[in-house]
Structure formats: C-alpha cells, structure tokens
C-alpha cells in the first residue's frame, strides 16, 4: 500500500501540478457519485493521499484545501488530530506493534524492546536504509493471538522476541 518517499518527491518535481493532483479530483468525483459533499470529503481525501504516497506531502495537503475551499490550517488541523495520518515519508515495509491490553499482559513490551534492538530505531521512525517504518497501534483486533505485530498486511501472532529476527529477514530490503 505504501509507496516509497522517493516516489512522492520525484512526482513533485517532474509532473505538472494539474496532472499530479488528478487523482484527488477523481476521488472527489467518486465520492460525489455516492452523494457525499463538501467538507465531509476532507478525511476521505486525506486517506486517498496517504493511500497513494504512504504519507501526506505538503503540496497535496494544499491541493486538498484548494479543492474543498477550506483554509490549509483546517486541513492541517485534521491531519494532525488523527493517528492514522503521517506527515513524513515511510519505509518500504510498515511494522505495527500492538500496545493494546491483551498484548500488554502477554509481554508486548518485551517485543518492543527486541524490535528496538533489532531495528536500531524508536517507534515512529524509519530505518536509515528505508526498509522499515515502525509504528505503535492501540490494538490490531487479533487479541486472541497476543502478543501481535503486523508487517504490511500480515499478522504475526503468539510472538516471542526470539522469533523476531527470522521474521524480519523475510521482508526484503
């Protein structure tokens, strides 16, 4: 789902603005067909931006503001309120470790310590080689398999710190 940061910045430089933002207009048209209108589209549009780039590039935030005729401050306010949105580029794979209750009582902290040691970064950061971005989430909804982490779209449950290095190796650089 997540495109690399490089893609994002490259597009900014080489494509004409109108063309670059065509995907946003398409998203607006789709939503209009569903009867959705105006500011109601703000969050869906931000989701479209993030779906395309993996984060919210500043130019696209400005484009969203223009399309919806709302101040950029409003767009920024919404983008920073919700945990889902990122303002910085992401790595190739996204690791989400669960910090929810079920995982907490089954040793999620030990997994996080092991991840920190293995990746050499703190939650919220991307490895210098751009391979992994590591995020914390409140619950992945697979609590029965606690402790759980999710890498891209794959769940890894009943996990022990010892299993981590082997699992990480299966995700290419």
């Amino acid at each position, binding site marked *: 789902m997540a495109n690399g940061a490089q893609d994002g910045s490259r597009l900014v430089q080489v494509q004409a603005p109108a063309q670059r933002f065509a995907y946003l207009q398409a998203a607006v048209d789709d939503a209009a067909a*569903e*009867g*959705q209108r*105006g*500011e*109601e*589209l*703000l*969050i*869906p549009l*931000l*989701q479209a931006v993030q779906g395309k780039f993996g984060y919210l590039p500043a130019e696209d935030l400005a484009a969203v503001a223009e399309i919806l005729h709302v101040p950029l401050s409003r767009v920024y*306010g*919404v983008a920073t*309120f*919700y*945990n*889902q*949105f990122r303002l910085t580029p992401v790595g190739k794979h996204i690791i989400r470790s*669960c*910090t*929810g*209750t*079920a*995982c*907490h*009582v*089954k040793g999620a902290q030990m997994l996080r310590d092991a991840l920190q040691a293995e990746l050499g970064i703190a939650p919220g950061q991307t490895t210098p080689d751009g391979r992994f971005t590591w995020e914390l*989430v*409140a*619950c*992945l*909804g*697979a*609590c*029965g*398999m*606690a402790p*759980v982490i999710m890498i891209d*779209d794959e*769940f*890894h*449950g*009943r996990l022990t*710190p010892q299993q981590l290095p082997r699992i990480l190796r299966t995700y290419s650089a």
Partner: protein
Amino acid sequence: MSLEHLDAAPPQSAPGALQTGMTQLLVCGDSGCRSSGGDAVLAALQEAVRRAGAEGQIQLVRTGCHGFCEAGPVVLVEPVHAFYCRVNESDAADMVAAARRGEVLERLLYRPDPQAPPVVHPEDIPFYQKQVKRVLARCGRIDPEEIGDYLAAGGYQALAKALHQMTPEQVIEEVKRSGLRGRGGGGFPTGLKWQLTRQAQGSPKYVICNADEGDPGAFMDRSVLEGDPHSVVEGLILCAYAVGASEGFIYVRAEYPMAVKTLRRAIAQARERGFLGRNILGSGMDFELHIKEGAGAFVCGEETALMASIEGRRGMPRPRPPFPAQSGLWGKPTNINNVETYANVPMIITRGADWYAALGTERSKGTKVFALTGRINHTGLVEVPMGITLREIIYDVGGGIRGGRKFKAVQIGGPSGGCLSAQHLDLPIDYDSLTAAGAMMGSGGLVTLDETTCMVDLARFFMNFMRNESCGKCTPCREGTQRMLETLERICGGQGTLDDLSYLEKTGQVMKRASLCGLGQTAPNPVLSTLRYFRAEYEAHILEHRCPAGVCKALLAYYIEADLCRGCGKCARQCPAGAITGEPKHPYQIDPEKCVRCGGCVDACAFDAVRTA
C-alpha cells in the same frame, strides 16, 4: 423484490443445509486464525482438493471467526460436524482424503488434555458448552462474502416482515419490549432511543452504526462485521425504517481494513438484491448506506466526536444535551448504535420480543459477546447469556488460568472499565451489577490477569492510553489524565508516597464529575477500581519499594545465584552499564548501584542464574 420473491431466492450455497453428497470444509479466515497461519491452510486445502479432483465433492468456505482463537487455525467439517484445531498446511491432504471418505480425522480433533479422548462436535467442547450463539450464530458457519448464505440462513426475513407486516411504531415497540440495551458500553435502552429519534422534529434523519471499537483488547465488533456483515446491515435498515431515516453511515475503525472490505461487498450485494436503494422490497422505503473509515482516534468512538469526524472535522466531543436523537449529524435527528446492538435486531423482529427477553436477567436481556483474552487458557470470542457469572466465563468457557497459575483479576470494559477481583467471581454479569462493582460492561473486552500482572502497572498502562487519546478540549480530562499518569509513574518507579493515593482518588473524582465526555468521565475507573480492590499492591510499591508481581523494573533488584553461575561472563559482556564483574569460571556479581535494571543479563544467562527479588 416482494416477500414471495425473497422466499424463493435461491441460496447460492447453503450453510449447514448441504446439497446432497457435498462435504463442506469451513475454514476460519478471521484475523486471529490468519495470524496463526490460516491463509496458508486454506491455500493448501485448495491445492489438495484440486489434486484429488474433488471439486465436485468438497466445498471450501472461508468463514468468519469460530470463536476458539486459541485453537486456531480451526476448520469445521460438515455434515460430519467435526471440529479441527491447530490445523497445519501439511494436514490438508489428509483432511481432504478423510472428507471424501466421510470420515473424521482423529488427530486434529480437540482434546481437553493429551490423555483424554478426542471430542468430535464443537458443542461438546467445554469452550462452547455454556455459550449461547445468537449474534454469532452464523459467524463461522457462512461465507460472509455471499449474501446467498445469509439468505439461506433466514437473512433479510426480518426486513421483509417489518416492511410488509409492521408499522415503524410496531417495530419500535417490539425492540422496546425485547429489553435490548446498547452494546456499545452505556447500555441505554435501544427501543427508547429509536422512539426519541422517530419523534424528533427535523428532516432528513440519519442512522449511524458505531464500528469504531476503540477498546484496545477487544475485537467483537470486528468479528461480527467480518463474519456476518449482513446482520448489521439488516439491523441498520430496520432501524432506518423505524426512525424514518433515508441515509445511514457505518463508521469503521481505521485498523480494520478487512471489515471495510467485507462490508463494502455486503452493501453492494444488498443493493443488487433490492434491500438497499430506492423502493426497498416494493415498500416505498428508500435507504442508502455509506461506509466511513475512521482515521485512528479513540475518542471518535464517542458519539458526538464520531459525528464531527463524519462531517470532516477534528473528532472532538461536544456537550450533551442536545442528544443525537434531537440534533446529531449536520444538526439533524440521528440514531447511533453499536455494531452488536444492530446485529441483535433482526432476530427480535423475526422471533419476537418474548422469545428474545426469555434469556437474561431482570434488566439486561439476551446475550453479550465478549473478547476473552489475557492469561487464560482459551482465548477467543465468546457469546454468553446475560447473568452468567465471571467464574463460569473464566473457568468453564475460558478453561481457567494459563499454566495453572492463580486468578488475580479480570479487567472488563477496557480503559473506561475497571478491575474486578476474586471476590466478584460469582457476580452475575449484567449492566447494573458491573457498574455497581465499579467496572462497566463497556464494549465487551475481558482481559484475565494472574499474579504476574502488576495492578499498578496496569492502571498506569490505561492512564497512559487515555492521556494519549484525550482530545484536549476540556481541562479536567486533559490535565487530569496527565497528572494521574505522572503520579502512577512515580509509584511504579518507587518514588510514590501515601499522599499520592489520596491525590489519585481526589483527582479521579473531579475528572468523573467535571469532564466533558465519557472519555474523561471514565478514565479514572481503572485507577479507582484497582485502588479499591488492590490497595495493598499500591502500598507495597510505596512503603516497601517492592513490586509483588515483579513487573515494575525500577523496583526489582537483580542478583546472581552463586550456585548456578558457571562464570561464563556472558552477562557481563551484555550489561550496558558495566555493573557485572567477576573472574571467569567463578560466580559473577551485580553492583546494584550501577545496575540500570534492563534485564539484559536475565536473557543472556543460559543457566537461569540471574534472579530478581
């Protein structure tokens, strides 16, 4: 489509009721089983069926959650009705071969313990015996992606009955008489809420399904949406008919992409069949249903914040009244209910309020779905009648505490809920008994704890969550969560005083009374309930600088058991603080002054010689 057409609608694949000669393998495709390899099992089964050339004989169905996540990946075989546990890819060929012969593959059956005889049918497994499956009746039994399965199981009959035989008022009356109360946490009577929305002035009116499921440690709503999406869609259409709404929204949590996908498909299929859109089933009713994906904010589970989020704003709550029934989405009368609440409605309409209300307690009717997690043998998704005791849930359904340890507490209701102790094991569970005990039903997260869980650390954990998720609009919540968290961190760090305990109680009371929304009003619950039932544990941290559960790192003293130490020096090389010294082949020592209590030496030692006190 009229009622007669509906009856005649051919099921594309019939659940339970099989076409003669066909064997069904119902493979759990829920996140729980997927995380333990369910996808690979399904792929292997497809391959095995193809190889055996058994496509005309064996039907593979990817279902929603069967509930017994602990035993996942699970597969149910029909019509022999055998339940396979912890299935592996390498079992696929054998499963297919057995299915073709109409036999049961004994080695995959559930065994209560390794010596016990295997159990064939799911109903005979202790985990399922005390459960009553109403909301989850079809979860794990049908293909959630096929509306035909839902129809064959009696789906959309309630809608047809309501539209053709009942007035909106009669629908409301039936829901009222059933005693159904909101499953989203508060327990407000559902029928009454619908009536208030129907009677409110203003148009258009809206209906909303709250699928934000923010409680970290709960997955009931996700499982229903992924396992039986049409029951929720049907409940929503019934509600729209009852309150007079023509547009509805399902607000789904960002972390549930599978649920969104399943719902999108369900809505499209319902529209194709004429259950959504214009002139539904020829009744003249119009209704459109949209999905709104949340963006990751716990507070958006609160109804006014949720509506702000749908409108495209920051998800901040506003004071109530006015309640959504009077002034909700875009200022119009709006009915908002939880996923499970809606999923209860179709059966109330088809089978009647009296049937529904026959189960449960005086003031809480029907069943409740719980997500059973934590330090318990059978983690999973369970549905039990209201009024069942905690003991029955934890020991009979949940199989008791893992590793033969001792039960310590159960955390119920998530970050808004509380911790109950052994003295509550025989408490019959309903909305009112839980509130009286200082917890709450909440959404249905039930986390079991044993003596390895520190209650102070758990209170700190929840307060940290609430501090992060407080939207910051009102002062009691914004400041209160921060101050309470700092105090709890002090206690966990061994710097607490007894005054801190009264400070926690006082601040908690202020937050309960003065906060704007339910988040701040309930955030102190985990702290207040643990102070009430586990005060001695707080005191041990403060007075004896000791964490009885051995969790709070700052309070642990590390030492090396001289008898066990071989003097390999691995721990010393591992120690980031240079706190471990010694001579090779002689016992090493830890300098408590230098030790930073990271626990690295415990992991490094191959001889289990590093101990904590």
